[in-house]
């Protein structure tokens, strides 16, 4: 079935099964591979994108539910990769393998949108759906705090 999706302000027309998870439409059909596959069951957060500004696990979000909504992926978070979170991530050299970091940054961006000055507990709560096997958590916390400072 034909579905129209707006991803990072570009309109895409897809002919896909309506129950296809948004993740695979983004990766395999739209060709945007910054959003990662990690578990397929909304357990790890690697696939986190924004739908109308809200963070969703795109591996468990049917493409039909995204029709007509505004989808933002890591590629569309900022014009030049200079979102305060992206900058803080680089300043603190947060990534190790880097694979989960798209999802981490998208979850963190949604957090700062609704809570510009999060406490440590707020950060832990908002980010607890995003796994990092390399164990970059203490730097993720610090980077979010730094970005929050910069934004305010």
């Amino acid at each position, binding site marked *: 079935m034909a579905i129209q999706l707006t991803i990072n302000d570009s309109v895409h027309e897809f002919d*896909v*099964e309506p129950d*296809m*998870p948004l993740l*695979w439409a983004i*990766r*395999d*059909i739209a*060709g*945007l*591979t*910054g*959003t*990662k*596959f*990690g*578990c*397929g*069951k909304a*357990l*790890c957060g*690697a696939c986190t994108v924004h739908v109308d500004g809200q963070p969703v696990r795109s591996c468990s979000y049917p493409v039909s539910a995204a029709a007509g909504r505004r989808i933002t*992926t*890591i*590629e569309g*978070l900022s014009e030049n*990769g200079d979102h305060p979170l*992206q900058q803080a*991530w*680089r300043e603190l*050299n*947060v*990534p*190790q*393998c*880097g*694979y*989960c*970091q*798209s999802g981490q*940054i998208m979850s963190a961006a949604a957090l700062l949108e609704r809570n510009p000055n999060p406490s440590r507990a707020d*950060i*832990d*709560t908002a*980010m*607890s*759906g*995003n*796994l*990092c*096997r*390399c*164990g*970059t*958590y*203490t*730097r*993720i*916390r610090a980077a979010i705090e730094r970005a929050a400072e910069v934004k305010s």
Partner: protein
Amino acid sequence: MSDIRLLSRRDFLRRTGQGTGGLVLALSFAGCSRPAEEPAAASEELAEFTPNVYVNLKSDGVLEIHCHRSEMGQGIRTCLPQVIADEMDAAWDRIVLVQAPGGQQYGDQNTDGSTSIRQQFDLLRNAGASAREMLLLAAAERWQVERSEVTAAEHTVYHEASGRSAGFGELVEDAARQELPAEPTFKSPDNYRYIGESMDLIDGFDMTTGQANYGIDTVLPDMLYASIERPPVFGGTIRSLDDSEARAVAGVVDVVRMPDPTSPPVFNPLGGVAVLATNTWAAQQGRKALKIDWDAGPNAVYDSESYKQAMIETSHTAGSPIFNRGDVDAALDGADRVVEADYYAPHLSQAPMEPPAATARINEDGSCDVWSCTQNPQAVQQTVAGLLGIEQTDVHAHVTLLGGGFGRKSKADFPAEAAWLARETGRSVKVTWTREDDIQQGYLHAVSAQHLQASMDGDGAVTGWLHRTVFPSIGSTFNAETTGPGGFELDLGFVDNPFDIGNMRLETGDAKAHVRIGWLRSVCNIYHAFAVSSFADELAHAAGVDPKDYLLSLIGPPRLIDPTADGASYNNYGQSLEQHPIDTARLSAVVEKAADMASWGRALPEGRGLGIAAHRSFLAYVAAVAEVSVDDAGKLKVEDMWLVIDAGRVINPDRVVAQMEGAGIFGMSLAMHGEITAKGGSIEQNNFDGYPLVRINEAPNSINVHIMDVDAPPGGVGEPGVPPIAPAITNAYFAATGNRVRELPMRKAGLV
């Protein structure tokens, strides 16, 4: 430090005056990225100086450094050019990093065992220093001066006496004519510019903008996406297959039977049935519609509960002695007191965040191109060549970034699957493992039972030490007849016991594997350190001595240990004991430092405890102190950690700190949560709900890392942080509660 990728790109664009076509392809290759479909053409007019396979200096001054090791989060793509560029006196912002494919010309490319720096520091120094020497000779020749009169700095050669200078790029053609120096002089460490500096991550920009390309991200024109249903029991085969419903699923293009599994498995495909489709989702849906009747085969007997009991029983009976010092039996018989304990640690899955993924294409000449997130592209060449019956040199094994490896991706089974399917279908094929595949069908870290006995004299000093280790061997993956631990595994925290005890015997017991056994970050050191460091803590409490003081007394006076003196074979991680001794002074020093950082001995509130453990592995010494709190329900929280590493000379201190922070979390996951079990031969867990990892809300408030400043050759960094974490936590749990943890993970006993 600046962002090397950005500067390099900009610089490259400016200097060549091009912005499209071959240039872009060359650059995207440099970024560890997608396959180039057209030949790279940008630099064809540029002269090149390639004194070795790692260095390619262009006449425009751009320095290509070829990274032959895989990046999986340890930072090698940043650290490797640090070493080469430093010895070459190259400018950091003129480097373009190129990820090398598999090839014998690079030497050993297997990125495991924490070897990239510890085994190849001299090789990398040589690559840079010989290039530098040839540039100096070229300049001396051009200016008709003595070689001793010219110097290099920041991509330029100088003749101070005459004030002349020449950029590296200008010297390319002359340098290429110079003779390769047999033994180039290395820099004095006093003159290092990049070695020892915390350079920013080369891939930092790409990793934070979604531009970094991993194994799962490869896209080839007209490719098919595959999902494979593999035998639920290791070694199982297909009795019958009905694929009619699978073929009817929208988007499914083909269904292909995989080759039957081999015995031993090595890195060959596991068998099963592949569904190929126009996208990943359709392939997964088609796979669900397969109807397969399996013959489970002999491994259906595998049951973790009964296997555990059998292993513990084995550990209670005399085993094969492989190390014997003094007379342990006499010490135990005549002791005032004997303490004994059993420890058990389960199978684990590496569970990298990126599941295994590979993409392959068969070319018209029969050669194969395969892109994968592999730790070992040479194993990819070997495995694919064997499976397809072609020459290894006809397998072009491209290396993407790895979304974590931890040992899983040193096995080439997933690139082999992709290559097989590419040949069977005549199309390019990407195979993507699901998380369920990864957890149920991988190469598991071995389950293990450990039995220890110690005799004590009236003063609480240990007079005798008996340790038996039982686990299914990684050797079984390569030799089906293997029934017990192999020597290479006993080197990992067993026969290199650092304790100063006059009577010591180490024995092994058999355990036959029923799943594929493989490496996991720090390997057998995990269960050996858990047992030895826990037992040391138990003995301290039995003796009524502070655990840190007792640990130091067990380690004893400064001395160098050679396990072969007591009958063991010992390989010292492939390096000499002369260069990398087992030095108890260095082990004691990290213990003292970690205790100092944690203010060991301070008064703690009720329900809090400090635990300490120390372990040498991969030629590095690590001590860990954990502070835990335990609530009224007995549930643990790790509050803070202090980790100290002595890895000799380090290349990039920030990456060492990052590896230690990561090891702390990795060690917490296996201490608290991780367990893989089998029933009826099948793995019972299948995703992050059944196999939980530590999440950010469980992470300690702080992980405080100290790197010892030691003038010694580099040791490993990626793995040595892991082994002492679990015992530091369980020892802290004992300090807080008086309850001893002898089985991992703690979750099983409701302690987290």
